[in-house]
């Protein structure tokens, strides 16, 4: 087995994972993810805790320091024994607030503080750097174990591994900006990798245990012989390290960015902790207890001076078991790969949300919700920020690997990371159990702890500072860890006790500590907030489709039709949380303030809320159901009432108008026909007057045609003539037809011809009629100085077709939107319209007839109509009486 073969095998393995992740992502996008959403997959994905450190480093660690290596697994074992009350609370609260990362959790709890989020992100990035370096180092080290003496490996293995893993993380971690930070493809790949690494480790462990040694009893005897052997003094447990490391690893399993990501962010409910609570410790126990035989047998059999971090490979190799060694290599590669990919994704979300986006917002003071800015794709910006962050995180790991020379013991690098991230633990735990913990306290504690960690652990690990001097008898590492955590906890507690937090923070504290939904009634909408501005903002972050979907559903819940819900406090709070699920709580809150002009909460308001709440809580519970029902009905009634009032006025006006419309041409026809009867009229005048009569008669015919058309459609007597048509051709014809009638204005037409080539099964003539109508309307009413029409066509997930026709004019005012699809509605002066206002009403009837819909999309920076077609037209009953509707 040469390093080249193994390199090729790893590339093939990555390609396989790539395919798997891709398939899982596609299945999830198509809504078939139920089978992926099992507690077992969740439990397996947690095993990302077992990185290359476990795979290679644990054996080295055990060889040098005996049972101390077990502390790294006992900590998580203790934490998971309490999964049902501790972790479940964490997951529940985080899901309630749609938390995207550990930094987001801390920041959200402490008043959505942007500064705190940035600080935690910084610690996360610093602490993860040595950890990622560890993974890169392990892969190149493992490859070198296979190298033939005299043929050294190329020096840049670590770089290639880093590049490949960065590509994987970018492809699957930043595919789209999800409204919840979940990545089905990556999780699926990690679950499979968990099985691969367990299988590889169990294989080598079992081989060593029974193939080389004589079973457990022999291994225990060998362990006892370590006590008197030459290297055995390192095996003696040092109480201070034992305690500090168990504490650190217990913290790490919750606060390491990648662990928080798989444990909390990717959890789709809290019930899966029931299984993970025992299955994950079982996984850890299996991995960790197999380390012991490999370590002691390796120390016995392998020549002195061989690297204990590589025993797991060297043992099968020394026995000529090349295939087993290759399997082990793949297992180790798996563990390194999943750790780097998940870490990079988790850290890049933190960096993008808490560093890059706030910076960008600060640089750009322009209003974010201006319709003119609607085109600007905020989502793409955020994705690019994440890609940049992934490259820099992995790049930093590689640099760390280079600067340490790749010779450090793996476990030493891992504990640096653990102790750094653990500085977040006091704030997190206090935030979840103590309402009195405040932002200033958390910042002071974390900052002090991180500074001590940086000076006493991180810099010395890089060789940039001398290791701390501790009193004799105290281990420098354990001493530094306990000191940093003690100062951290003390400062946080003291400052919190003396502090008076601001109202936002107190609301969040209440919500986090009691695991109740964030309060919706405290922050009132500023007068300037408009649903449309919020929709525009959301569209720029999630993409139009998702934003429209969210708004439509919210409107539906309120009993309204269309895309613009009322800005109730509940809706605003939900909206902000939804945003927070993508950009983090601090940024979401900043965006709301910026776009919505929403002011902060005052202490008085807060007291009022709390007072009312305690009185009304019990009543509320009973009334909530009824009142929301009532509110929905009321909203529905209000909407229909408004529509009815406007309609009845319009209908009255219409009778006058329709008579007027019929009478005007009739008058001129009569007048000119009388003139024609004059005997001595010049021939050219006669021709001109006859022409006028013809035009006027034509206008009347069109009007009558429209009236007839709509009455036929409404009564359900229309005939559906289904056929297959190419949408591109239809749009082409519609543009030609609509262009022919238009006045001589120059319109820019923006289309994507490739996307338009969609076969549609419908009544092509009817669809064409709708297209012509909408395009002609856009040409008629678009008031931009450089008018342009954009047409987008796409296939929806359900197989239907959507066509958006979009102009860059001033759009239709909110008060008119409810009416445009009604018969006889004409918004401005009739002279411009040149019809009786039946066009869109006919379109609506036709689309209903075709089984689809036409709707006005608000917040697009101009008028935009969406024509939606079902995959195939509805089957009409033969009897026209039944088909009406």
């Amino acid at each position, binding site marked *: 087995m040469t390093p080249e073969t193994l390199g090729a095998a790893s590339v093939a393995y990555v390609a396989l994972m790539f395919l798997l992740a891709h398939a899982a992502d596609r299945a999830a996008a198509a809504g078939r993810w139920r089978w992926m959403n099992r507690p077992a997959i969740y439990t397996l994905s947690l095993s990302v805790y077992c990185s290359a450190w476990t795979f290679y480093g644990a054996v080295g660690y055990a060889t040098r320091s*005996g*049972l101390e290596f*077990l502390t790294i697994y*006992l900590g998580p*074992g*203790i*934490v*998971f*024994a*309490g*999964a*049902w*009350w*501790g972790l479940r609370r964490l997951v529940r609260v985080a899901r309630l607030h749609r938390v995207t990362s550990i930094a987001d959790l801390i920041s959200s709890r402490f008043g959505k503080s942007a500064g705190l989020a940035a600080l935690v992100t910084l610690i996360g990035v610093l602490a993860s750097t040595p950890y990622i370096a560890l993974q890169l180092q392990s892969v190149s080290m493992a490859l070198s174990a296979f190298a033939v003496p005299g043929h050294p490996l190329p020096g840049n293995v670590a770089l290639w591994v880093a590049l490949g893993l960065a590509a994987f993380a970018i492809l699957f971690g930043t595919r789209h900006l999800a409204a919840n930070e979940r990545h089905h493809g990556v999780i699926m790949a990690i679950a499979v990798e968990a099985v691969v690494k367990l299988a590889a480790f169990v294989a080598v462990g079992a081989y060593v245990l029974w193939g080389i040694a004589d079973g457990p009893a022999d291994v*225990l*005897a060998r*362990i*006892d012989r*370590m*006590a008197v052997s030459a290297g055995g003094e390192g*095996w*003696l*447990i*040092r*109480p201070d390290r*034992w*305690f500090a490391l*168990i504490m650190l690893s217990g913290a790490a399993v919750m606060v390491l960015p990648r662990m928080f990501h798989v444990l909390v962010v990717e959890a789709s409910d*809290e*019930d899966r902790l*029931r*299984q993970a*609570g*025992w*299955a994950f*410790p*079982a996984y850890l*126990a299996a991995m960790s*207890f197999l380390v*012991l035989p490999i370590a002691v047998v390796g120390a016995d059999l392998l020549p002195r001076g061989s690297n204990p971090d590589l025993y797991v490979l060297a043992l099968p190799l020394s026995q000529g078991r090349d295939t087993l060694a290759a399997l082990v290599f793949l297992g180790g590669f798996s563990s390194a790969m999943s750790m780097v990919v998940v870490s990079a994704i988790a850290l890049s979300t933190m960096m993008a949300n808490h560093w890059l986006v706030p910076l960008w917002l600060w640089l750009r003071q322009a209003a974010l919700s201006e319709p003119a800015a609607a085109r600007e794709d905020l989502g793409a910006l955020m994705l690019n920020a994440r890609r940049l962050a992934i490259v820099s995180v992995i790049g930093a790991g590689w640099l760390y690997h280079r600067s340490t020379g790749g010779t450090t013991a793996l476990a030493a690098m891992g504990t640096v990371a653990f102790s750094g991230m653990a500085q977040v633990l006091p704030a997190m735990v206090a935030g979840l159990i103590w309402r009195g913990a405040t932002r200033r306290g958390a910042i002071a504690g974390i900052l002090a702890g991180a500074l001590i960690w940086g000076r006493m652990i991180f810099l010395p690990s890089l060789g940039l500072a001398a290791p701390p001097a501790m009193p004799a008898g105290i281990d420098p590492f354990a001493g530094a860890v306990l000191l940093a955590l003690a100062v951290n906890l003390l400062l946080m507690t003291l400052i919190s006790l003396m502090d008076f937090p601001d109202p936002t923070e107190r609301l969040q504290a209440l919500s986090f500590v*009691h695991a*109740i*939904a964030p*309060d919706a*009634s405290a922050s009132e909408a500023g007068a300037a907030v408009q649903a449309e501005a919020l929709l525009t903002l959301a569209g720029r972050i999630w993409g139009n489709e998702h934003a429209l979907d969210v708004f439509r559903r919210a409107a539906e819940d309120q009993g309204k039709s269309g895309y613009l819900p009322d800005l109730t406090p509940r809706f605003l709070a939900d909206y902000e949380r939804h945003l927070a699920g993508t950009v983090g709580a601090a940024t979401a809150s900043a965006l709301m303030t910026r776009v919505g002009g929403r002011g902060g909460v005052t202490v008085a308001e807060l007291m009022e*809320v709390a007072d009312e*709440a305690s009185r*009304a*809580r*019990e009543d*509320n*519970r009973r009334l909530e159901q009824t009142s929301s029902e009532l509110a929905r009905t009321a909203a529905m009634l209000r909407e229909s009432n408004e529509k009815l009032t406007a309609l009845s006025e319009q209908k009255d006006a219409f009778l006058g108008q329709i008579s007027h419309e019929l009478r005007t041409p009739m008058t001129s026809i009569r007048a000119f026909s009388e003139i024609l009867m004059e005997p001595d009229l010049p021939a050219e005048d006669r021709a001109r007057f006859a022409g006028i009569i013809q035009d006027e008669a034509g206008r009347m015919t069109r009007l009558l045609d429209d009236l007839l058309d709509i009455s036929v459609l409404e009564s359900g007597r229309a005939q559906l003539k289904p056929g297959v048509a190419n949408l591109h051709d239809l749009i082409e014809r519609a543009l030609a037809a609509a262009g022919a009638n238009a006045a001589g204005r120059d319109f820019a037409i923006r289309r994507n011809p490739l996307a338009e080539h969609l076969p549609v099964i419908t009544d092509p003539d009817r669809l064409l009629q709708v297209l012509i109508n909408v395009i002609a309307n856009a040409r008629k009413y678009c008031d931009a100085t450089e008018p342009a029409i954009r047409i987008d066509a796409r296939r929806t997930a359900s197989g239907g077709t959507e066509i958006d026709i979009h102009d860059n004019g001033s759009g239709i005012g909110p008060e008119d939107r409810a009416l445009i699809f009604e018969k006889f509605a004409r918004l401005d002066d009739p002279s411009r319209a040149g019809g009786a206002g039946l066009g869109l009403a006919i379109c609506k009837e036709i689309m209903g007839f075709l089984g689809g819909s036409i709707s006005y999309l608000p917040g697009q920076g101009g008028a935009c109509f969406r024509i939606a077609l079902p995959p195939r037209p509805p089957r009409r009953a033969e009897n026209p009486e039944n088909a009406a509707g």
Partner: protein
Amino acid sequence: MRARMRRLFLGRDAYRKRRLGDATRVLPVLFALLAVLPPMWLPQYFSYARGAVWLAASWALTIAVTAALHGAIGGGGAEDEDDA
């Protein structure tokens, strides 16, 4: 405010479920005591094979008890409902 008052008294099944929940709080404390204290008190005694067996046994026991408790608690989050 969407908080709900917890019921003061429960039926038999819900009562049992809540006591099982209490047990899951004691469990990590017990395991922490087993895993942390003996090796710290008697490092000589627990540093080698005896320590490995002690830790393996106590961890395996903890995992088994956790699995049993979590199984008994069962799915469905309706622990506040009164079934009496």
